[in-house]
C-alpha cells in the first residue's frame, strides 16, 4: 500500500471516529479515543518514514468549490511536525481513555482536532491550510468549552477562538500576498516566488504575528494561560505539545520555504521576540499557583526558546552561512520534539494529580509522592527534563541552541547580530536558571513535603493506564537524552530539504557534532552520572562499614511539626518575585488587626497578586474602548424616522456629487 494510500486511511479513520461518539455504548467504552490513538499512531509512522526518507507524499482530496480544492502534500518539514502531533496524540488519547469523562461533543471533536492538526502540517495549498487551521481552532474551541457552565471557561474559549480567528486573517493575508506574486495558491508553486524587499518583509511580519498568536509568543499569548487550565488535561497536553507547534510550523513554512533569504533584521527580531517570551513566560510561570497555568506559561517560555533558534537560523541564512543555519534549525526542531515529550508528560501528570487529589492548586497539595510514587517519579523526570538538565532530552535542544548562538556571536555576521547573540545567550541562561527554579517549585511543593490539605492526604494512585502512560513518557524523556544523536540523524533530511546543508554529524561513540562546531555526547554524560552515583556510597560503605538509618520527626525549632509550617508556592517564589519586582510589578496588601491596646496582633491578613501586565495594560483597555465606541456609534440608530430619511438623502446627495 503506497504511503499516500496509508495517509488516506489515517484521514478516513480519524474522520469516521466521531460517528462512534453518537453510539452510547461505544462512548462509554471510549471507542472514539482509542480510534484516535490508533489513527495518530499510524500517522506518526507514516510521518517518520517520510522524514527519514526525505521524500514527499501527495494526496488529492475533493474540491468544495472551483477555486478551492482540498489536497495534501507531506514534505519532510511538514512530516516532522506531523510526527510530533501524531506522537503527542497517541499518548494523550490513551491517557484520555482513562482520564476523560465520556461526553458526546468532546469525543466527537477530539479525533477531528487531531485530524485538523495533521492536515495543517500536510496542507498542499492555501485553502486546505486555512480550512485545517480554522477547523483546528473550532474543534479545540469545543474541547476547551466542554459543558461550558462556568463563566471563566466560556470566556477563555471565546477569547481563544476570537484571537485565533483574527490571527488567521493576518496569516491568510501573508499567504495571499505570496500567492499573488507566484500566481497560484499551491505551496509547491508558491515556493518559487521568492519575494524580495519591502513586500517580503510585510509577508514575514504578517506571518510572525498571525502564527505567533497560535504559537503563544508574547504579547499575543494571553489566550494560552486562560485556555489550557480549563481544558481537560489530555486536551491541554495536545494543545501545548502539538497545536502550539503548528504556529512554529507556519512561521517555518513562510520564512524558509516561501520567502528567500530575506533581511538580516528578520532573524534578529525573532531572537528578541523569543527571548522576551522565554523570560516573561518563565517569570509568570513562577508566580502561578495553578498546576496547569504554570505549565501553560512554560509553554510560552519553550516556544520563545524555539523562536530564538529559528531567529538564529534566519540570521545565519541571511548571511549565507547555510551550514550554521541548518544547525540552528535542527536545534529548533529537536527542542520542539523534546518539548512535545516532556510537556505532554507534565500536563498528563497534572491530569493524574487532578483525578487523585481533586485539586490543581499546588498550595493545597503536598507529599503526593507517597501516595502516587509512579506518577511522582514520572513528573520528577519531566520537571528535570523541562529545566534542561543533562542526562534528559531537554538539555540536548538547549545545548545545540546555546552552541549555535556562541558560533553566531563569533561568526562574521555584523555587530548588531553578534550583540543580539550575546544578549540571547545571557537571556537563555537566565531562563535556564528560572526554569530550574520554577519546576523545582512545582514538583517540590506538589509532590514533596507533608500533605497540606486532607484532599492531598487522601490522594491515591490513579488508574493504572494513566500512570502507565506517564511512566512510558518518562522513559522516552530519558531515552531521548541518551539517544539524541538518533533523533538528529532522523531530522537531518528536514534541514537538507530546506537549506541544502546537513547541520550536524553523528560522531562514532553516539555524540552530536554541530556544523557550527562543538560536540556533545549525552550518552557519555549519562554513563558518567550512572557510574558516579553508586561508586562513592559503595566506597564509603566498604571503608567505614554499614550504618543504620532510623527515622524521627522533622526538626521545627522544638515545636511539634504541622504541615501549615511548610512553604507554599507563593512563599517559595517570593525571592524571585522581589529580585524581578521592576518587571513583575507585584501588588501586596497586609492587614493587621489588634486586640484593643495590646501590641500583639489578633489577625494578620496577607493578600498579594502579580498582575497579568499584557492583559490589564493593553487587552482590557482595548476591549473597553471597543465597547465604549460601539456604544457611541449605536446612538446613530436613535429611532427617529426623520433622521433615517436624512441618512438616505445624505447618501444620495453625496453619491450624486462624488460619483457623477
Amino acid at each position, binding site marked *: 500500500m503506497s504511503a499516500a494510500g496509508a495517509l488516506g486511511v489515517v484521514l478516513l479513520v480519524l474522520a469516521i471516529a466521531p460517528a462512534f461518539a453518537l453510539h452510547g455504548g461505544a462512548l462509554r467504552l471510549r471507542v472514539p479515543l482509542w480510534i484516535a490513538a490508533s489513527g495518530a499512531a499510524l500517522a506518526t509512522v507514516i510521518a517518520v518514514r517520510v522524514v527519514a526518507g526525505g521524500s514527499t507524499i501527495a494526496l488529492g482530496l475533493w474540491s468544495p468549490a472551483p477555486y478551492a480544492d482540498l489536497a495534501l502534500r507531506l514534505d519532510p518539514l511538514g512530516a516532522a511536525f506531523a510526527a510530533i502531533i501524531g506522537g503527542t496524540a497517541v499518548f494523550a488519547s490513551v491517557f484520555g481513555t482513562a482520564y476523560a469523562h465520556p461526553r458526546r461533543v468532546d469525543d466527537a471533536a477530539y479525533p477531528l482536532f487531531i485530524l485538523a492538526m495533521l492536515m495543517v502540517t500536510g496542507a498542499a495549498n492555501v485553502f486546505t491550510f486555512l480550512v485545517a487551521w480554522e477547523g483546528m481552532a473550532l474543534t479545540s474551541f469545543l474541547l476547551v468549552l466542554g459543558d461550558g457552565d462556568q463563566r471563566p471557561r466560556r470566556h477563555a474559549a471565546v477569547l481563544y477562538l476570537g484571537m485565533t480567528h483574527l490571527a488567521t486573517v493576518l496569516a491568510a493575508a501573508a499567504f495571499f500576498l505570496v500567492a499573488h506574486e507566484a500566481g497560484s495558491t499551491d505551496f509547491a508553486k508558491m515556493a518559487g516566488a521568492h519575494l524580495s524587499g519591502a513586500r517580503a518583509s510585510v509577508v514575514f511580519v504578517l506571518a510572525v504575528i498571525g502564527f505567533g498568536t497560535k504559537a503563544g509568543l508574547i504579547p499575543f499569548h494571553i489566550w494560552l494561560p486562560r485556555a489550557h487550565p480549563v481544558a481537560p488535561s489530555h486536551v491541554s497536553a495536545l494543545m501545548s505539545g502539538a497545536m502550539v507547534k503548528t504556529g512554529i510550523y507556519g512561521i517555518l513554512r513562510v520564512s524558509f520555504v516561501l520567502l528567500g533569504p530575506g533581511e538580516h533584521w528578520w532573524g534578529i527580531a525573532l531572537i528578541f521576540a523569543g527571548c522576551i517570551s522565554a523570560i516573561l513566560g518563565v517569570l509568570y510561570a513562577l508566580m502561578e499557583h495553578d498546576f496547569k497555568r504554570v505549565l501553560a506559561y512554560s509553554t510560552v517560555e519553550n516556544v520563545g526558546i524555539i523562536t530564538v533558534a529559528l531567529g538564529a537560523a534566519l540570521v545565519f541564512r541571511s548571511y549565507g552561512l547555510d551550514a550554521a543555519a541548518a544547525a540552528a534549525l535542527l536545534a529548533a526542531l529537536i527542542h520542539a520534539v523534546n518539548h512535545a515529550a516532556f510537556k505532554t508528560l507534565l500536563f498528563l501528570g497534572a491530569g493524574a494529580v487532578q483525578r487523585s487529589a481533586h485539586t490543581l492548586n499546588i498550595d493545597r497539595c503536598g*507529599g503526593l509522592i507517597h501516595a502516587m510514587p509512579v506518577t511522582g517519579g514520572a513528573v520528577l523526570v519531566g520537571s528535570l527534563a523541562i529545566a534542561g*538538565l543533562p542526562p534528559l532530552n531537554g538539555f540536548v535542544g538547549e545545548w545545540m541552541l546555546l552552541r549555535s548562538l*556562541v558560533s553566531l556571536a563569533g561568526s562574521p555576521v555584523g555587530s548588531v547580530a553578534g550583540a543580539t547573540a550575546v544578549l540571547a545567550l545571557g537571556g537563555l*541562561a537566565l531562563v535556564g536558571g528560572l526554569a530550574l527554579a520554577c519546576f523545582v517549585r512545582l*514538583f*517540590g511543593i506538589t509532590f514533596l513535603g507533608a500533605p497540606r490539605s486532607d484532599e492531598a492526604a487522601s490522594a491515591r494512585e490513579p488508574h493504572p493506564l494513566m500512570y502507565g502512560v506517564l511512566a512510558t513518557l518518562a522513559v522516552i524523556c530519558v531515552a531521548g537524552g541518551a539517544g539524541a544523536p538518533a533523533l538528529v540523524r532522523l531530522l537531518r533530511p528536514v534541514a537538507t530539504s530546506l537549506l541544502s546543508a546537513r547541520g550536524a554529524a553523528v560522531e562514532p561513540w553516539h555524540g552530536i557534532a554541530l556544523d557550527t562546531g562543538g560536540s556533545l555526547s549525552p550518552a*557519555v554524560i549519562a554513563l558518567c552520572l550512572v557510574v558516579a552515583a553508586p561508586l562513592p556510597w559503595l566506597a564509603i560503605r566498604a571503608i567505614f562499614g554499614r*550504618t543504620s538509618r532510623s527515622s524521627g520527626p*522533622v526538626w521545627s525549632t522544638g515545636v511539634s511539626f504541622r504541615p501549615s*509550617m511548610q512553604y507554599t508556592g507563593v512563599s517559595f517564589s517570593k525571592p524571585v518575585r522581589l529580585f524581578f519586582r521592576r518587571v513583575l510589578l507585584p501588588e501586596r496588601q497586609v492587614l493587621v488587626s489588634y486586640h484593643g491596646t495590646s501590641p500583639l496582633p489578633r489577625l494578620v491578613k496577607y493578600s498579594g497578586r502579580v498582575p497579568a501586565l499584557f492583559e490589564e495594560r493593553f487587552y482590557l483597555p482595548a476591549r473597553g474602548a471597543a465597547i465604549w465606541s460601539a456604544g457611541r456609534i449605536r446612538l446613530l440608530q436613535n429611532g427617529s424616522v426623520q433622521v433615517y430619511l436624512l441618512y438616505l438623502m445624505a447618501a444620495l446627495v453625496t453619491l450624486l456629487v462624488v460619483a457623477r
Partner: protein
Amino acid sequence: MSIADAAMLAVLQLGALAGVAPLLNGLIRKVKARLQYRQGPPLLQNYYDLGKWWSRSEQVATSTSFVHRCAPAGVLATTLAATLFLPVFSWHTPLSSAGDLFVVVALFALGRALLTLGGMDSGSSFGQMGSSREVAVGALVEPILILSLVTLAIGADSTRLGEIVRVAAGQGGSAITPGWILAAAGFAVVLVAETGRIPVDNPDTHLELTMIHEAMLIEYSGRSLGMLHFSALLKQAILVVLLANVFLPFGLTAAGTGGHAIAAALVVGKVAGVGIGLAIVESVLAKTRLFELPDLLGMAAFATLLGAALVVLA
C-alpha cells in the same frame, strides 16, 4: 589522545581534586582565622569531619521519600562527573569531545536541582526556605557563569574548556584584554556565590534565617551529610581550579611532555593563591541582605555582558 590516556588522566584528575578539596577548604578557614587573630581549626579538620560523618548512622524525617535519600548520591555524582570535563594539569580534558563548558554548568545546575529537591522533601520550613533562596540565587548566577565562560569561548572560537585554555595559553600576555578582565570579575562573583561565601551566604554560621546552602542540609545527618559536604568541597575545588586554569592559563603544558610535575606544582600554587584570595575577601566584606543580592549579581551580570559584547564587537 587514546582511551587509555584519557582514562589515566581522568583517574589522576579525580584523585587529585578529591584529595585536595578538603585541604583547600582547611587552608581557607586557617587563613581566615589568622586574619581574625585566632588560632582556627587545624588544616586537616575537614578530613576529620568527613571521617566522623561517614562513620555515623543517620536519622531521617518521617515524611521524606526516595528523593531525600537519593539526593546526596546524585549531587556527588554530578560533581564527580563535572571533574571529567575540566583541564586540570594540561589543556587536555579526559572527555573533551563529549562535553564543553555548557555541560559543566548544566551538571552544576543538576546538582543544585537535586540538592534543593532533597532539602524540600523533609517538609521542614528551613529546608524549603533554603531551597527557595538557592534556586533564586542560582537563577541569577547562571547567566553570569555562562557569559563569563562564553566571553573567552568566543575569543577561542570553541566552547571546549581545554581549547579555551590552550588558545589563552598560546596568546600569553596578550590574553589580558578588557573583555577578559570583566569575565574574570564576573567569574569571581560566581565563585563566591556558588560556594556560599560571605557577601552572598555565610558558610560558618548555623543561624537558620541567614544561611542558604546550609539550610538545605539541615535534615541530613551521618553518611548523607558527609557526602553532601564532600560534594560542596569538591565543587569549590572545581570552581577554584577553573578560575585558576581558564583565567590564569600560564604554566599549563600539553600532556605527555614530562612537565607533569612542574604543571602540578604550578596548579597547586595557583589554587592556593586563589584560596587565600577568597579568605581575604571573606574577612574584608560583610554579608549583604538577601534582597540586596540582585544589585550585586546584576552588576556582575552587566560586567560580563559588556565583556562579551566587547569581544564580539572587537
